[in-house]
Structure formats: structure tokens, C-alpha cells
């Protein structure tokens, strides 16, 4: 289960809406599995069907997390024309075994889909999301 403050959910959704129709991506850093710090990342691909963190930005952010004893608790990205479910490429490149992979879909202008998954060795498991104040 992912327990996440509503404020962070709102930030992820706002980022996804702002970058639509391209995919948006980023990280929520935290400690002991608790998501705390919103870190939006550039999508180096600037694409409606693909995302990739910029490698230099990723190095900087990962070092910063290391220095603060944080981990990427959440790795999020958006789908802009399809449902909020991991694609085949999402599954094959998933490489943070401890992260909650959050998918947001912006295909509907009024409604947002916000779902969370564990992706381990090619296996996707959806998990419950608990929104807290």
C-alpha cells in the first residue's frame, strides 16, 4: 500500500497536466518508505509516448537523496492517451525494486486516474493508495 499526502498527489497531477500532451515524470523522495519531497524531473524525451530522466539531472538528484539519507520512494510518470497502467516498456525498464511506481493518466480533461504499482522482475502488482491530509 502507498500512503501519500494529498498535497503531493496534487503536485504530481499538476505537473502531469502542465506537460500534457507530453509525458511528465519525477520522484518523491523520502525516508523509511514515507514520501516527503516532491522532485519534478525533465522528460529528456519530450514525448507523448515515452519518458526518460535526463541523465545529468538524475545524477544530481540521486546524489542529493544519498546525502540526505533519502530514497526514491515514489517514481511517477503520466500517460497522456491511455490508462494509468504500466506499459510493456515501463515494466522492462523498471529498476528501483523498492519504489512505488505511480501512474497518472491525463487522457480525460476533468477526471484524473492516480494508481500505484510495484514492479519487480517483470511482474506488476497494483497496490492500494491511501490519501492522507
Amino acid at each position, binding site marked *: 500500500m502507498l500512503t501519500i499526502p494529498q498535497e503531493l498527489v496534487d503536485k504530481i497531477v499538476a505537473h502531469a497536466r502542465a506537460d500534457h500532451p507530453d509525458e511528465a515524470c519525477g520522484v518523491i523522495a523520502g525516508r523509511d518508505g514515507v514520501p516527503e519531497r516532491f522532485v519534478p524531473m525533465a522528460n529528456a524525451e519530450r514525448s507523448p509516448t515515452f519518458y526518460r530522466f535526463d*541523465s*545529468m539531472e*538524475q*545524477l544530481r538528484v540521486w546524489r542529493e537523496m544519498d546525502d540526505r539519507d533519502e530514497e526514491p520512494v515514489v517514481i511517477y510518470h503520466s500517460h497522456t492517451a491511455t490508462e494509468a497502467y504500466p*506499459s510493456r516498456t515501463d*515494466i522492462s*525498464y523498471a529498476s528501483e525494486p523498492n519504489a512505488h511506481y505511480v501512474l497518472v493518466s491525463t487522457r480525460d480533461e476533468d477526471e484524473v486516474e492516480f494508481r500505484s504499482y510495484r514492479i519487480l522482475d517483470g511482474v506488476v502488482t497494483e497496490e492500494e493508495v491511501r490519501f492522507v491530509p
Partner: protein
Amino acid sequence: MAIEVRIPTILRNYTGGAKAVAAEGATLDELISNLESAHPGIKERLVDQGSLRRFVNVYLNDEDVRFLGGLGTPVSDGDTVTVLPAVAGG
């Protein structure tokens, strides 16, 4: 002195859980071969058909080695090599 190689979570099963290990070599290619001799299996996760895997980022100090010289990049004692899996998908 040696070169420090920082290992990402997903590859720590090859290093007995260690976050960083020491290795030697004059180029990144040699360094990875040296790493392989101490931690068998790790090379295949970094290199495919003679070049770095597309979805693995390798940095020499503060630079992405793709912008330096790939596997041919010279390395020297005191350098730090950082491996990070790319975060990507569709």
C-alpha cells in the same frame, strides 16, 4: 589506491549488498572487467555486445561517460564511477 564504483540498489546482489566497491583499470572497459572478476555476472548487466547498455547510466566523477568516450574512457586512481539505471518507460 583504486577507483571507487558506486553500485545501485538493483545490482547490489552482485556485490554482497555493498553500495560501493573498489576496482582497477586504465579505461572503463578494463575497470568493468576487473569488477566482473570480483563480482561475476555484473558485467552483463552493464555491457551488451561491446557497448554500454542503453538503459544504464555510467558516470565518471560528474560526467556521463556517453559524452566522454563510452567504454574507452580513461579512468585513474581516485576517480569515482557511479552506475545508475536509467529511469525510463513509455
